[in-house]
């Protein structure tokens, strides 16, 4: 798939469907046909197509459908698509389109190997958290939300990733603390608290200003309905209390 012209065309079509807001007014070919579909649905389906490309989908990516998979295709797809996705997120006007773009972004980064992601952490961190905040509003996005949070926790484990996170700690702390109370999935709450435990190792000057906020949230998390979350909250609270 690398460098293949048809792949680029497919990508451009998907972006067109995802980012076009109002089909009735657009002058794209086949817009009469497309006018029958509501554009948010179409937009979301185009975004979900990214997950089919990036995950190893046996049903679609096989020889029968003329898909030839070359090594490192995910990394190449990620690098070619990243700039377009980031600029679409910034430029999108309607909330539906922005939502779908966040979905596409989420699918791409949760399936890209971590080595490729680590090269671009500075660009990724803030959009990643905007994506998490946007997805957490709807309970249907559980699985995607969890995969993106796992990506963040893998970034936290690497030194290059840590530097990018440390610079933005004051911005990402609020969405992360909100995820500690995400009501629809226990694993999301647990992983968010584990990320906070890892963040307690950061330089003292960066994390001391947010210490009180974290302790307040952990105090409430001690009463979480699920036992694993409570146990993580105890650990997190102890770590953050000892940094004084």
């Amino acid at each position: 798939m690398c460098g293949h012209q048809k792949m680029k065309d497919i990508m451009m079509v998907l972006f067109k469907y995802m980012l076009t807001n109002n089909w009735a007014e657009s002058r794209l070919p086949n817009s009469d046909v497309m006018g029958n579909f509501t554009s948010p649905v179409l937009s979301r389906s185009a975004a979900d197509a990214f997950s089919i490309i990036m995950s190893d989908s046996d049903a679609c990516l096989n020889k029968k459908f003329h898909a030839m998979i070359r090594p490192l295709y995910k990394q190449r797809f990620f690098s070619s698509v990243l700039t377009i996705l980031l600029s679409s997120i910034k430029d999108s006007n309607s909330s539906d389109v922005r939502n779908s773009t966040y979905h596409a972004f989420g699918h791409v980064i949760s399936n890209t190997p971590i080595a490729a992601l680590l090269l671009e952490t500075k660009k990724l961190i803030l959009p990643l958290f905007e994506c998490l905040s946007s997805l957490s509003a709807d309970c249907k996005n559980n699985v995607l939300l969890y995969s993106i949070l796992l990506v963040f926790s893998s970034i936290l484990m690497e030194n290059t990733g840590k530097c990018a996170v440390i610079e933005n700690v004051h911005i990402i702390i609020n969405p992360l603390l909100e995820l500690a109370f995400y009501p629809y999935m226990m694993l999301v709450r647990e992983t968010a608290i584990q990320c906070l435990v890892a963040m307690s190792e950061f330089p003292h000057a960066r994390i001391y200003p947010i210490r009180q906020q974290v302790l307040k949230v952990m105090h409430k998390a001690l009463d979480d309905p699920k036992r694993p979350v409570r146990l993580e909250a105890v650990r997190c609270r102890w770590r953050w209390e000892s940094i004084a």
Partner: protein
Amino acid sequence: MSGGLINANPTVYSKQERRTRKTKAEDEYTRDLIDSEEIFDHIRDIKDPEHPYSLEELKVVRENDIEVSSKQDYVRVNFTPTVEHCSMATIIGLSLRVKLMRSLPSRFKVDILVAPGTHATEASVNKQLNDKERVAAALENPNLLEMVDECLAPSY
């Protein structure tokens, strides 16, 4: 502190099996009530002030001696000092109280008591351990706080 240990040769028992995490998909919305096993998990690894063993290994705390009522927000822990004249009983009791204070939601009332008949000055130790003001005053003493933190470190 005098040179000799209170109990130079404690009996060490084997550790009990720990509860493993359920691997199958759990129901997201049912509440896991706080039970005596969870309280025991919080306190079993607290280190004895004198020896490098945990309170579970020395059978100072046992799961059967913990009473929990999640509906009434009440926890009672009975602990058994290893010898009758153990002067570490107050420190052990204080460590238990601090650990549970930091690990349970604030709605819980916690009572820490010496198991009946196992200590010479049982009544006085119980009185000290369950008086909020005396506990707060004790925790303001930096040496005592350091000792408690050292005992609690392995339990997190």
